[in-house]
């Protein structure tokens, strides 16, 4: 099947249904749904039906538009208006104003840096297409990359294109994707697997969920291209069960793609076959670690094992396996469509392309953003994020979740890429970005993440299992004013030991939040210990005599 035939296939369906005069797009991704966007959608549909203009005007559910803090969001086309904080009682007014002056009270300004400073590749369809309709995806060049790859590219050419793009793993570690693919392609044997890691678990991170909920076909297409490149015929999507909406949309997407012959046997009429199945995670953070994830798919206890051998060589059921993150796969189709050189022209020297971040915490605009690599933290937080609400002062930004660190004000003008973040003691991570203002106690933040790591440790290796519990105990004593300076020294020793002796990434990076807060906010630790005082006023301190 050529890309033209693909388009024709879809346009047949569209010809029967004339383009509506107005299209009202309602965000139906998790954030807006949680503020009742489904009721808004229903109210709008009812309103159109009541006025008898349903055929010429259409209500459409779309994926995440990004500005989650202003949800539920409703976009009206072709008027080009976006409404924020819409409730079902606004439905009549919105329909009345179709094609007329927009409602001022509800208008969401789209000329702000939040929208203009973004560069969308992964999220190019988010908020525009209906995630439950494959036709919408194909109408926006979906599956043309797959069709082209199968039509006139060899697996090696696909890998070369990915290598040329400079794409690096978006799960956090930043391993070069092209290199990973070629390793799996070179691995022996006829049976290979492709796994998509959608076990997103960092607190405050929702990039992968949004991609899956807003544009599931993009991930499937990326997986199919990867399978063709490495020589696999079976894929697994490991999604955490806490993402029911993403799972539902993925199931729909797989079914639709199979029906059109874009997944399954003899894809696009070629000899290439690729099946995708969904596996649900049972709520263990450690299953985001690739070897634990593989164990979990195999039906075993989700525990990591020492690497090497790496999954590329010895993975699922002992066969060579390619594991990539959702966002990595989501970048594949655009790279094939526009070329690796195009992708490599975006970003910095060593970090190419864009990165999706989930902006959360003490910023005015929370939500999902996609920015080119190399943008500064200041631009992300103060331009796109709109700065700190309530006139409070910025204190730090936490990147990389429980494996990352807290970056203070002095590094705000540093470019965001894999290397720079590592230099200041944090990591790129999967893309969670939590902004903290002066009301946050950094020791308390470190305690929060240590509690997370302690609870999520699988318990296999000693340093992570016992070390995190001991570190948490010390942090608890510090935040309740009971610790001594010698305990702080012990905490630092434990950080060093756990970091260098743990079996997997969870333990090896668990001390990072403590180490980075100790590096930049040591005075806060000292204040807790020596003065028995929490500078931010967060921790409950014992009342001292004479006060």
């Amino acid at each position, binding site marked *: 099947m050529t890309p033209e035939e693909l388009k024709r296939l879809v346009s047949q369906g569209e010809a029967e249904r004339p383009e509506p005069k107005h299209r009202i797009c309602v965000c139906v991704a998790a954030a807006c749904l949680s503020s009742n966007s489904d009721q808004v959608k229903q109210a709008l549909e009812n309103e159109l039906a009541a006025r008898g203009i349903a055929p010429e005007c259409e209500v459409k559910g779309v994926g995440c538009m990004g500005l989650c803090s202003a949800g539920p969001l409703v976009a009206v086309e072709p008027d080009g208006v976006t409404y924020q904080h819409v409730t079902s009682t606004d439905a009549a007014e919105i329909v009345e104003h179709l094609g007329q002056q927009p409602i001022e009270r509800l208008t969401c300004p789209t000329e702000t840096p939040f929208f203009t400073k973004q560069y969308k590749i992964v999220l190019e369809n988010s908020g525009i297409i209906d995630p439950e309709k494959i036709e919408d995806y194909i109408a926006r060049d979906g599956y043309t990359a797959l069709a082209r790859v199968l039509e006139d590219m060899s697996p090696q050419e696909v890998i070369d294109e990915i290598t040329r793009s400079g794409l690096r793993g978006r799960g956090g570690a930043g391993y070069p994707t092209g290199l990973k693919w070629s390793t799996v392609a070179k691995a022996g044997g006829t049976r290979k697997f492709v796994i998509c890691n959608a076990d997103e678990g960092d607190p405050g991170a929702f990039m992968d969920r949004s991609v899956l909920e807003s544009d599931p076909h993009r991930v499937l297409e990326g997986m199919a291209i990867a399978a063709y490149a490495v020589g696999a015929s079976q894929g697994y999507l490991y999604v955490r069960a806490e993402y029911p909406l993403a799972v539902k949309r993925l199931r729909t997407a797989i079914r639709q793609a199979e029906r059109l012959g874009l997944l399954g046997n003899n894809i696009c009429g070629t000899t290439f076959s690729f099946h995708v199945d969904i596996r649900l995670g049972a709520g263990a953070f450690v299953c985001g670690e690739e070897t634990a994830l593989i164990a979990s798919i195999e039906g075993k206890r989700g525990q990591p094992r020492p690497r090497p051998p790496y999954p590329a060589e010895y993975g699922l059921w002992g066969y060579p396996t390619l594991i990539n993150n959702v966002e990595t796969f989501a970048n594949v189709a655009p790279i094939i469509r526009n070329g690796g050189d195009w992708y490599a022209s975006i970003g910095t020297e060593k970090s190419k392309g864009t990165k999706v971040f989930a902006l959360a915490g003490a910023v005015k605009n929370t939500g999902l953003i996609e920015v080119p690599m190399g943008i500064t933290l200041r631009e992300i937080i103060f331009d796109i994020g709109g700065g700190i609400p309530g006139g409070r002062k910025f204190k730090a930004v936490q990147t990389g979740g429980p494996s990352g660190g807290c970056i203070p004000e002095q590094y705000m003008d540093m470019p965001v890429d894999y290397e720079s973040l590592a230099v200041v003691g944090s990591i790129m991570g999967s893309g969670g970005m939590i902004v903290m203002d002066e009301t946050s106690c950094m020791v308390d933040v470190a305690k929060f993440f240590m509690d997370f790591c302690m609870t999520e440790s699988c318990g296999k290796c000693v340093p992570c299992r016992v070390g995190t519990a*001991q570190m948490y105990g010390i942090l608890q004593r510090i935040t309740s004013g009971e610790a001594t300076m010698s305990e702080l020294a012990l905490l630092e020793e434990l950080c060093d030991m756990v970091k260098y002796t743990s079996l997997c990434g969870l333990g090896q990076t668990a001390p990072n939040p403590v180490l980075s807060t100790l590096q930049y906010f040591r005075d806060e630790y000292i204040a807790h210990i020596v003065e028995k005082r929490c500078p931010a006023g967060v921790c409950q301190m014992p009342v001292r005599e004479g006060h």
Partner: protein
Amino acid sequence: MNQPVRVKTLKIDDRDVSGREDETILEVARQNGIFIPTLCHLDGLTSIGACRLCLVEVKGVSRLLPACVTRVEEGMEVYTQSERLQKYRRMTLELLFSERNHICSVCVVNGHCELQSLAQTLGMTHVGVPYRFPRLPVDASHERFVVDHNRCILCTRCVRVCDEIEGAHTWDVMGRGIDSRVITDLSEPWGDSETCTSCGKCVNVCPTGALFEKGKPVADRLKKRQFLPYLTMMREERR
């Protein structure tokens, strides 16, 4: 059929040694009388690299590598006794002692416990982290054996021997992190287990006093492990 076996030459603690390509650093070190401490490893069982006591430094590799699962490579330079490694090993032991209630003087294997003897060998003089003193049960429901969770270090030797050698898979681990615990069947009393064959292999591989036999004087509680390499050898011959 007979493929030539490749032999690698390497250095362990500046000594020239050689090993088959399928051998681990630990195996080659032990053949040459170089001591690397281990707890979760046991000859005859799959190595899992969980206790982290056998971590070694390899020149040119930034990470520390577990000797029990790392294959030898040509030209490798391995260091097993650096000050840093010794410090980490002592801390690992301290963490293990702090985790549960390891009180040697009232333990059934006092005098022939691997944890205790490693602490002596590695010069662990005190426990620098606070003891956690968890309240853990003792299951004496089995007619011959007892599991005392207070002494368990979660090395999972019992789990592996039961699964890999006996083939019963009575033992497994439940819970996460610091709450992990070995269990019989689906966390039922050991005495009620329908899968347990009462073979006693788990008791014999247990490095501490977590698994022991009832009605035996302490002096008789030496663990018998000769069966393991023997069984493994027999199996390989059959293949």
